[in-house]
């Protein structure tokens, strides 16, 4: 079995990025597209940590990775908040329709 090198990690991240883009361009469901974005961010993050380990040395890649994880979480939170807002509107419309039917 071959020795583990930088390129192994980079190929995994390249494929991960490819799947992320595939999810983003083909899925129609907004939540699925958000998941595709998470794949892209993970691919970039894997690159950063791998480069930090094999190219830069030190912890700069890991620090970058930590920030990306935090920002990805914030982005997902905003995305969910908007989905929640849409959900509330749809539900409100549904319930109001239900009451008009009862009268």
């Amino acid at each position, binding site marked *: 079995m071959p020795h583990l090198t930088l390129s192994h990690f980079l190929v995994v991240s390249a494929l991960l990025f490819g799947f992320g883009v595939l999810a*983003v361009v083909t899925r129609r469901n907004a939540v699925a597209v958000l998941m595709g974005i998470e794949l892209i*961010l993970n691919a*970039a993050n894997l*690159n950063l940590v791998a480069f930090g380990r094999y190219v830069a040395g030190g912890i700069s890649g890991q620090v*970058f990775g930590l920030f990306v994880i935090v920002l990805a979480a914030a*982005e997902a939170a905003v995305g969910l908040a*908007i989905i929640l*807002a*849409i959900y509330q509107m*749809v539900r409100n419309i549904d319930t109001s329709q239900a009451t008009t039917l009862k009268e």
Partner: protein
Amino acid sequence: MTITQFNIASASWFRPELALTAGILLLFLLDVLVRKQSRYRVAVLTVAALACVGVAAALLAFQPVESRAMFNGMIASDPFATFWKWLFLGAAALTVLIAARSDEFPSPRIGVFYALLLSVVLGMFLMATSLDLLMLYLAIEMVSLPSYAIAGYKPGDRRAAEASLKYVIYGGVASGIMLFGLSYIYGLVGSTNLTALGVRLESLAAPASAGGQLGLRVALMVAVIFVLCGIGYKIAAVPWHMWCPDVYEGAPTPFVAFLSVGPKAAGFALAVRVFYSFLASGGGPEGFARGLADVPWPAVVGVLSAVTMTLGNLSALHQNNLKRLLAYSSISHAGYALMGLAAASQLGVQSVMIYMLVYLVMNLGAFLAVIAIAQATGSETIADCNGLSRRHPLLAVTFAVFLFSLTGLPPLAGFVGKWYLFVAVLSHYAGDGGAWYVTLAVIAALNTAISLYYYVRIIRAMFIEAPAGELVVRPRVSYQIMLGTFSAALLLFGVWWNPLIEWTQASLTFLTRG
């Protein structure tokens, strides 16, 4: 100096940003403390927001002008950044003034809006000053994330919410792709610091084998194109413009006005800093032309510019909603400004700066006119402008001034802005690829003619069509004052543009690579 001492020393060049941060927190606090039913709520919060911007501006004015790196090479302080900071603060102050008297922010939500607006401004400050890949990514997200929230701000409006969802998704994809590109740059040079970038990239190319050379070229191309995705999204250039019309239509108009000038200008500031000072070989804008990875990047930017302005203008032709029309118009203006980047020269950078400054005033003015019209009629289509000249001459005349200025007709400031872009591009006509630069200028001239058509549609509706019904149009007093001031400024700087030239000339020094 130790790292901590360096951080503490940097703080004295960081006061405007600190003032903004304090302002953000103060507004969050005030938003909770001032009672929801209070009559003075909006007034108190508006004054607080303006005070924060004012304090930041005062601190910026008293900041020593010298180029230096701060916080261990995270951000720069230089005249170039200071120019953009003034522009951002101006946009923020005007947006606060517009939002205060708008109907689109119910008073329970306006405090948070101001706080989010200031955090976007802080993000734009960082975009214009970033010297580090991490800082750059963080700054872009700092502009994007609060913007997503504000875009979906209208309570109970499903289309606005879906537009903001689209905004989040496109924005997330663009910034993710950009991050991937940044990670390759980091991998190639082994450092996140932009000042070390150019030198290391050059030393990288020399010893590599033939296969390595090709790999390096492809890696650099991928990295630059991916980074362009992120920046193109921020300035809404084709093909990253799809979010623009929907978000502009759905989001609160005062914020749209800000969005169309602020983040766009910040995107250009970032593009200039990254592509001209660090990725350019040999430093300076001219180095950009010599080609990273043997790709003629100015040509790439030139094609982007031509496509962006043409698609923006052609799509604007058949729009009836004023906000959508202005959205496409703002896309085409990003295309015009890209001409300055394609010129790849000091003059090009200066012309982008002038254009963004003028564009700030005329586009804010146009959106302000749309807000005033929508407040009277309740909707924002071209038909709502019918007979406006008879209902409210001031509004009609100032709106016409903004539209003519957006077209680029003399004697308005929009003409000066466009003139310098053309000069920057045409100054290359005798050099390499001169024919292409002339072609770009011709395309831009044709586009100006196309844009005249749809701007004149609005003007025709205002001055020729008969008003439908007896509708009273009475814009708020503060809006009337702003409309008057904006158009006066456009007229004034349309004939006396020396101050613009001198200011941008003095702001052209920026921290280059170390």
